[in-house]
């Protein structure tokens, strides 16, 4: 006799923000599955109306304490788009360098503090530190390195104060940047070792055929700007976003679900970037990926932890390259004056594509704002992963199933604070 089961996780741990999961099973059959975001809404898009265009980077940074630079960058891009300029030269390099700092910090946090404990069976990194003191010490040092890049360029690691539309308030001297080079060099070799460690974790046999979406740039592994491309051949400019994507509002979540108008869910984030752009990785990152057994693309979401590690390697190598070529610009920022119009901006947040769109009045006041964070784009994909994952594993005992499903959610490093405009898991097994 098969019994209906319910598995409910009311408060998902080790994700940024508040979310929950609900699963209702009858035998092997999934009756209902919801990935809920109950993080209370904060209405950024509403109160951005009436603010000055120049305030958008500082205000939208507060959407997320984990990836403020992503918000600042997408907002700046949008305002610069409206002002008819695109950042280039050393100011763009600095923006990329700051962003790399955020990637390192955020990825290290996720890989070692939020995700690795799942694979190794620990509650948290502090417990993990008892058995793996060196790995945790290395992780802390890498995380600090990412933070110190943000502090140097942004003033502080959370909600940097040095980012403005058109560039920065103050640019660092070459000597200030060069001071972090030895630590970056250490970091590069440590990250390569860490990737090997991560590659050795036990991964469930699980693949899905995703529609990946990410930015692509002709000359580099895209972060701060580029065109939006997908695995099925979409290739559009950022300003074409509204024509190809749509958001819908489901009852169980405070985060909007995004989908391709052409139909169906898609997947943004490290796996998408890697799968679409792996040929553009820096040499050491490409080596680390192939040593870790990754092919040109990656479709096992549990292996996203390897992809993140590879991106850490990339970020460190790329940072060294940027510092090497840096010449301090004559002025920290270029003047941007949007005289009304619409601004679109996107960038690759650690968790994936982050799109901003603003309507700006002629006097520079924001008339309308629209922000699509990575986690809301991934919501459907997460639900689909969960559904697919349960299939064939429904016989697992509740606590094991719950642990693995939570892990499947954490594969996305979901940032729920961002998505709200978004974890707890409930599994209902219904007697049938």
């Amino acid at each position, binding site marked *: 006799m098969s019994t209906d089961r319910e598995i409910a996780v009311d408060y*998902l*741990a*080790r*994700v*940024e*923000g*508040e979310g929950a999961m609900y699963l209702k099973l009858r035998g092997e059959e999934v009756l209902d599955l919801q990935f809920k975001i109950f*993080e*209370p*809404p*904060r*209405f*950024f*898009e*509403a*109160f951005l*109306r009436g*603010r*000055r265009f120049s*305030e958008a980077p*500082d*205000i939208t940074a*507060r*959407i*997320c*304490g*984990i990836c*403020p630079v992503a918000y600042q960058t997408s907002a700046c891009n949008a305002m610069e788009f409206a002002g008819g300029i695109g950042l280039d030269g050393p100011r763009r390099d600095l923006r990329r360098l700051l962003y790399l700092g955020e990637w390192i910090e955020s990825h290290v*946090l996720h890989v070692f*503090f939020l995700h690795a*404990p799942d694979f190794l069976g620990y*509650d*948290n990194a*502090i*417990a993990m*530190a008892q058995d793996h003191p060196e790995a945790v010490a290395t992780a*802390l*040092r890498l*995380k*600090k390195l990412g*933070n110190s890049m943000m502090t140097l360029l942004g*003033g*502080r*690691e*959370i*909600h940097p*104060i*040095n980012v403005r539309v058109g560039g920065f*308030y*103050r640019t660092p001297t070459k000597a200030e940047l060069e001071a972090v080079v030895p630590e970056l060099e250490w970091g590069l070799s440590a990250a390569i070792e860490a990737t090997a460690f991560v590659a050795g974790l036990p991964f469930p046999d699980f693949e899905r055929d995703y529609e990946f979406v990410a930015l692509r740039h002709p000359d580099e592994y895209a972060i701060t700007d580029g065109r939006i491309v997908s695995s099925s051949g979409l290739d559009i400019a950022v300003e074409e976003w509204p024509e190809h994507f749509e*958001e819908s*509002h489901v*009852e169980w979540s*405070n985060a*909007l679900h995004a989908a391709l108008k052409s139909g169906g869910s898609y997947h943004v984030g490290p796996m998408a970037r890697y799968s679409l752009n792996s040929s553009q990785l820096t040499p050491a990152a490409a080596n680390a990926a192939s040593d870790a057994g990754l092919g040109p693309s990656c479709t096992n979401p549990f292996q996203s932890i390897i992809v993140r590690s590879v991106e850490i390697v990339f970020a460190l190598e790329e940072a060294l390259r940027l510092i090497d070529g840096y010449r301090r610009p004559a002025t*920290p920022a270029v003047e941007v004056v949007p005289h009304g119009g619409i601004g679109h901006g996107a960038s690759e947040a650690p968790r994936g594509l982050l799109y901003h769109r603003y309507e700006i009045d002629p006097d520079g006041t924001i008339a309308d704002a629209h922000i699509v964070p990575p986690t809301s784009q991934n919501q459907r994909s997460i639900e689909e992963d969960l559904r697919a994952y349960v299939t064939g594993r429904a016989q697992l005992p509740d606590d094991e199933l719950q642990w693995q499903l*939570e892990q499947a959610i954490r594969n996305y490093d979901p*940032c729920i*604070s961002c998505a709200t*405009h978004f974890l707890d898991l409930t599994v209902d097994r219904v007697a049938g």
Partner: protein
Amino acid sequence: MSKPRLAVWKFASCDGCQLTLLDCEDQLLNVADAIDIAYFPEATKGEIAGPYDLSLVEGSVTTAHDAARIHEVRRLSKKLVTIGACATAGGVQALRNWANVDDFVSVVYAHPEYIETLETSTPISQHVEVDFELRGCPISKRQLLEVINAFVHDRKPDIPPDSVCVECKMRGTPCVMVAKGTPCLGPITHAGCWALCPAYDRGCYGCFGPATTPNVAALGSWWRGLGASNNDLVLALRTFNGYAPEFREASETYEH
């Protein structure tokens, strides 16, 4: 001797303030030696049941559910410390307090009926007794460690409520308002950030909220002399601490 138990709670916020604890890379393991991190969902799956000796509360109250939950948190906590502008002053989401929330909901969501939210975003101290309020959007690492240290040793935290100018001068930054005519909120803003913005060549935008007895009116007239409009003043005062009484009241005088 059993270690004191720490709990970290989240209300409406960006997670930045609790991340500050994880950002104390050099001290994190020491902190974990001195206290039991008993409840901290962002960092740990394991959970030790309350009561807790120290609760750090991030975020503001924006839903009926949270308004009830904070009382439960208070009940479970010996000492309750709010961390950051959201918890201490309502945060940036308190900008709704000057608007009609239904309008706000319909701007963001297609189905406003799915959204449960309160009319206002309010600081924790409007709901329960708070033992200490730590300022900043986000809080400073140094000050967070000082609060934890003070708590462990049963003393008052040494967090001077002076203006940002004190730190600015100690740092040796030439005043941006005097030397460049850049409007700066430093003179009325609570110290703690080590006067970051002026050191990066911009005026303070008040992310630590009001200092003790801020003379907003006097600074406001000076700003106007520097070319700021009343609306500029309203916007400047209404960011991450706009709902702190001193900023709120002053901003309302500039509205008309």
